[in-house]
């Protein structure tokens, strides 16, 4: 019959001593084990957490780069076939001139404007029709998540527009040459 040890005397008896050595862990072993486990767990957990935040950060940057590309593409498509740039134009001393909005006339005679809204960090498009009618702002923005936008008149003939976009650690540096100016 198995003997159960309740008291200190019973517990330290030869039978119980043997049993204690064979089964289970001492408190010290448990503490040491837990310490090692929590140390390794902490290191691994911290590493995973760091990796997760790094992945998140890098994905956000990738999204920002993609937004920059998409926005540039939309604006370039329309700017390329513009008739003339109304603003910004090069300075009187022939130096480049930048603005956070650009006005140009298309071949239908309409005036199109791309403008940066700093409070909402987005670029919107507005169309001022040639003839009767009020300006129409597109419901969907050209792009969002930008912290800085600059449209720059680059050459004396105002045929070249530089676009600089910045947002969420990503940058876009493009230019468009007006084919029809």
């Amino acid at each position, binding site marked *: 019959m198995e003997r159960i040890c309740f008291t200190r005397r019973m517990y330290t008896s030869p039978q119980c001593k043997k049993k204690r050595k*064979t*089964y289970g862990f001492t408190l010290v072993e448990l503490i040491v084990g837990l310490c090692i486990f929590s140390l390794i767990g902490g290191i691994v957990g911290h590493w995973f957490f760091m*990796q997760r935040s*790094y*992945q998140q950060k*890098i*994905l956000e*940057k*990738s999204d920002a*780069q*993609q937004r920059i*590309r998409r926005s*540039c593409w939309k604006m370039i498509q329309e700017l390329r076939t513009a008739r003339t740039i109304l603003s910004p134009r090069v*300075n*009187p*001393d022939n*130096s*480049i*001139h*930048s*603005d956070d909005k650009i006005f140009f006339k298309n071949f239908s005679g309409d005036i199109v404007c791309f403008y940066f809204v700093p409070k909402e960090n987005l670029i919107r498009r507005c169309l001022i029709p040639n003839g009767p009618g009020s300006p129409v702002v597109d419901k969907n923005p050209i792009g969002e998540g930008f912290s800085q936008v*600059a449209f*720059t008149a*680059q*050459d004396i*003939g105002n*045929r*070249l527009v*530089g676009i*600089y976009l*910045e947002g969420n*650690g*990503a*940058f*876009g*540096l*493009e*230019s*468009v*040459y007006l084919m029809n100016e």
Partner: protein
Amino acid sequence: MKKGLSLTEILIAMSIAITILVPVVSMFSTAGRTVQKSIVFSFSTGLARRISQHLMVVPFDEIQEIPLPGVSLCNSIEDPFFNPLINFSTSKTGQESITQTDLPDFFKFLALYDFRYALSVSNVSFGDGDEIKSVAIIITWRENGKDMLYQTHVYIPSM
């Protein structure tokens, strides 16, 4: 019977754990590197496109060869394609170039990868005075200690 684990068992368990953990760890870093590479590559294609557009307004005779290792985008106060970059004032005094002082964040990004551009120009003559310049636009940068390159071609007629 003695309870516990033998050294062989521990070693086998550790080998299995390492075999599982190593690919998981490398998966994380590989994914991050791939995304970063695509960001940088996407940016470099934009740079090449910018140069190609600028070449349209550069006088034909002034399109010159720029040999490798090329011109750095940072710290060059004046070049025909990138500097000065912006100017929100109405005179030359407000011009800003890609320098630590003017555009620190952008400068940091470009300096980190050491973005440079070079041009390889070849003349093609048609005999009756008409010429075409074949311009190879080369964008180079350094990534994880490796030299990277993106190249595109444009053709500029003399007319």
